């Protein structure tokens, strides 16, 4: 039964983590640095769930991210799916079951999501309104902080949402 609720529970966890990110960001130097605590949920879905279930979950988490970010719709949904695919494809070299591996994957995913968002937004918006590359430093700090928090998120997800323990690593298997 809980396996059926895996994606809904992951979504609830993502919602709570979004709220936690916003609250903690306010406490951390008044917003000078930020956290993307919902990204490890996408990584967890990529590591622990079957392909179709996981990609749907990742897309839905992306929808939540889009809604919370208040930016143009679809950007973070697309990037979430890409992150999911990337985790499926690139988790091989990492021991994603370990804390360090999961933290590295989460950090890399957060950085790529931030980088992709800046790149795509720069591509579609006018140069005067486009985000500058100077934001990458902030994205890097966000990635490091998210990576530091990722093992705790994984620990919580493993206990609240039942992992499927994917046996075969690799793209969409």
């Amino acid at each position: 039964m809980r396996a059926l609720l895996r994606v809904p529970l992951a979504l609830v966890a993502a919602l709570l983590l979004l709220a936690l990110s916003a609250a903690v960001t306010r406490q951390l130097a008044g917003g000078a640095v930020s956290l993307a605590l919902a990204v490890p949920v996408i990584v967890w879905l990529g590591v622990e769930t079957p392909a179709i279930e996981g990609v749907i979950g990742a897309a839905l988490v992306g929808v939540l991210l889009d809604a919370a970010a208040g930016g143009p719709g679809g950007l973070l949904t697309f990037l979430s799916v890409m992150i999911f695919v990337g985790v499926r494809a690139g988790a091989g070299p990492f021991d994603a079951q370990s804390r360090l591996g999961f933290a590295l994957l989460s950090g890399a995913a957060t950085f790529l999501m931030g980088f992709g968002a800046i790149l795509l937004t720069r591509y579609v918006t006018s140069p005067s309104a486009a985000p500058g590359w100077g934001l990458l430093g902030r994205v890097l700090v966000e990635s490091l902080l998210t990576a530091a928090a990722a093992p705790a998120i994984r620990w919580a997800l493993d206990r609240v949402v039942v992992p499927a323990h994917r046996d075969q690593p690799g793209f969409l298997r």
Partner: protein
Amino acid sequence: MLSLLKRYREVIIVVVLAVVPLGVFLAHARHPSDRTALDRFVLAVTSPVEKAIDWTVSGALSTWQRYVWLRGAHDRAVALSRTVNDLRAENAELSQFKAENERLERLLAFARSRPEHRAVGARVIGTRMDPKGLQLVTIDRGADDGVRRMMPVVAADGVLGRVHTLGASSADVLVLSDRNSSIAVRVERSRARANVRGQGAPGPCRLEYALRSDDLIEGDQLVTSGTDGVFPRGLPVGQVTHVKRGGFGLYQAAEVLPAVDVNRVEEVAVLVSTEVPGGLPAARAPVP
């Protein structure tokens, strides 16, 4: 065809889930719209959680900073205490300036209300209220400033006394509470005449020579009558208290509460244009 779809089911779903949002993004990115119902839903769900977390984190941090992490608190408290003391001293000084300014304004208004008299402002620099001697107040103006003997001295509330002895840059003022001071007054209400004489100590004076038949009640205001050759008419002197009308005699007695508290007066004005008429006898020499 169906088997092809079945075979590549995962890939197709992934591509659809990636391409559709990308298309939505590319279509709407140049024309950002208002928040959708989903945006509002996410906000509505996350806001209470944010508030709860924020309250918890803020409370924990506040507790930590207030009750646990008190390093340097003592030094800060000492520094703040010093600052508070400095500010209190500054505040007291400013309050004194304010009170002085108010007194000077009242004195100035008093002087301006009598344009017929030219006044010289002076500051009280000493008092001698020895019960065995004269009741004197020393002011910082003297002969060099145009002050002369017998000139009336007033404060903002009324008559203080008259110039008794002169120096070049200071003068002693015989205040109205001295035994040797006698000021001709008139009851402002009934215009009855009398004299106000000091009793040798700061405080109430005595009302003399008020005819028994005169209309005099407690609370009557007394002003100078201008008949003693020293004080111009109309200056406030004091208020009648404790009227005593005996069973016989020509006069009735009363106490007078001076309008000016000689113990507290700080700024005065000497009415330099009021001179003793040549025909009048000089005031009696005070007897200590």
